[in-house]
């Protein structure tokens, strides 16, 4: 049906987006790749010299690298567990009828709209401060020793902050998926004498499987680049205790101004993210074919 004329018009309409994204993706990425094989330090004259794999070697053998990878995995894994399990429970709760459900839903999704730097500073100061923070006040109420969250448990602190931000996302998406569940199916199972637990396992959970996958994959993409929460609270410390891969690259880049090594780190981060991205893209691609 589409004539040659409309087809070329259509192409012209798509072109600006494609060209912009192509430039945005290819040019800097190519530069990063190029820099990653160069010795290039801004504080040191800034001359470029080919060094082969040296930047990669030095990035990977940096004593910060191992903790950074482990911290990244712990942070992403921790936030995923808290936000997905918590989000599922909240979604199940919000799917029930009760008084003021609409208002509760508004309260639950609120953290998602709070900018990361505000979240980080509010948690760091007003909640987690070991002397004046609310957490320490509450633990003293119960006769417990207050915890110096950001010094003693820096990674857990960041994990809690980030989980608070992503819990609403998981809850909202799972709730949306729950609401599309055919209630007749549940009722039929109920009449057949299936317990609430087995109804959940055999009907609800399979129905949610795709939404769950989407939540996990999308959160992973975003969580791999958590930055602001670390930047304004712990600065990656104490020591390397809360340094993630993203934060490590940032430090190499804008603290040490070692362009070569930061670029090698950037490429490593890109490769890691791509492994996740492949799964996500396949999943969403399948959805397009419906």
């Amino acid at each position, binding site marked *: 049906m589409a004539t040659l004329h409309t087809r070329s018009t259509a*192409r012209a309409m798509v072109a600006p987006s494609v060209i*912009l994204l192509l430039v945005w993706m290819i040019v800097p990425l190519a530069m990063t790749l190029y820099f990653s094989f160069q010795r290039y330090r801004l504080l040191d004259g800034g001359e470029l010299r080919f060094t082969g794999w040296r930047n990669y070697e030095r990035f990977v053998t940096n004593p910060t690298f191992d903790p950074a990878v482990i911290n990244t995995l712990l942070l992403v894994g921790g936030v995923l567990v808290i936000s997905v399990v918590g989000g599922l429970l909240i979604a199940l709760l919000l799917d029930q009828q009760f008084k003021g459900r609409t208002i509760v839903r508004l309260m639950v*999704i609120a953290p998602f709209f709070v900018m990361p730097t505000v979240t980080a500073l509010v948690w760091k100061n007003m909640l987690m401060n070991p002397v004046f923070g609310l957490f320490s006040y509450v633990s003293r109420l119960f006769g417990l020793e207050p915890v110096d969250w950001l010094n003693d448990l820096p990674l857990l602190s960041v994990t809690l902050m980030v989980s608070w931000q992503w819990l609403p996302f998981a809850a909202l998406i799972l709730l949306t998926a729950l609401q599309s569940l055919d209630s007749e199916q549940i009722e039929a199972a109920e009449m057949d004498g299936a317990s609430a637990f087995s109804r959940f396992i055999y009907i609800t959970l399979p129905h949610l499987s795709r939404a769950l996958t989407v939540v996990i994959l999308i959160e992973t993409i975003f969580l791999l680049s958590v930055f602001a929460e670390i930047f304004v609270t712990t600065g990656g410390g104490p020591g390397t205790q809360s340094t993630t891969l993203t934060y490590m690259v940032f430090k190499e880049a804008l603290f040490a101004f070692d362009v070569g090594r930061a670029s090698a780190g950037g490429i490593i981060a890109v490769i890691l993210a791509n492994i996740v991205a492949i799964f996500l893209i396949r999943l969403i691609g399948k959805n397009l*074919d419906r």
Partner: protein
Amino acid sequence: MARAVSTRRTIVLTIAGWTVGLLIFFPVFWTVLTSFKTEGEAVAIPPSILFFDWTFENYAEVQERSNYLRHFFNSVVISVGSTLLGLLVAVPAAWAMAFSPTKNTKNVLMWMLSTKMLPAVGVLMPIYLIFRDLGILDSLLGLTVVIMLINLPIIVWMLYTYFREIPGDILEAARMDGAQLWQEIVHVLTPMAIPGIASTFLLNVILAWNEAFWTLNLTTTNAAPLTAFIASYSSPEGLFWAKLSAASTMAIAPILILGWFSQRQLVRGLTFGAVK
């Protein structure tokens, strides 16, 4: 009997629901509350709840000390500007892909999505250097463009999922009547597309408003939007919780309200149409 059970069930659910809701919302509530306290009361132990001398001083002082409105204005320019620019480029693209799909359309969409998965640190150094050489570090123009580009895939995708739901028959009818592509767009379909465009606009203003990687790395003072400005409160010298709270309240209030209005679109936009 059945009624008694269901009433008890409703009561239990209501209590559970409100407890969870209030707990999750608490940090936001606490921030807003603290913004009306004096600095002394903000760190008081036990904490003062509701019964304290309410004051608006912090709001005035935040503005006086650091020209808060300027950063607020930067946030508005960057988030609205980047979204409008994005829409300008994305609407035609999403339109063409939804209504005149070719065999490549799916691949193009997938590829666009994949650019969103590029971690920002992967391109931090080149962007920083390019910006430095162009002299647009710490400029509104530079940030607006970067934020537009990082959100462009989401904008195209969201629009695409909305446009696809517009019935194609209408388009066929218009074509039979001899309408040109641009005529179809202006007279037939734009009215049907406005809600989708509006939702996309809202979600992307929210995302751009809260973006905190590029804003922190590419600005210092001039172009710093609220995300970067608030970060300046992380300095260890003294505790200014009341002022931090006032600055934070003003930074999150507009977007929280927008967010509450667009919660449905949020699901759709952030899952690239996979869940709606």
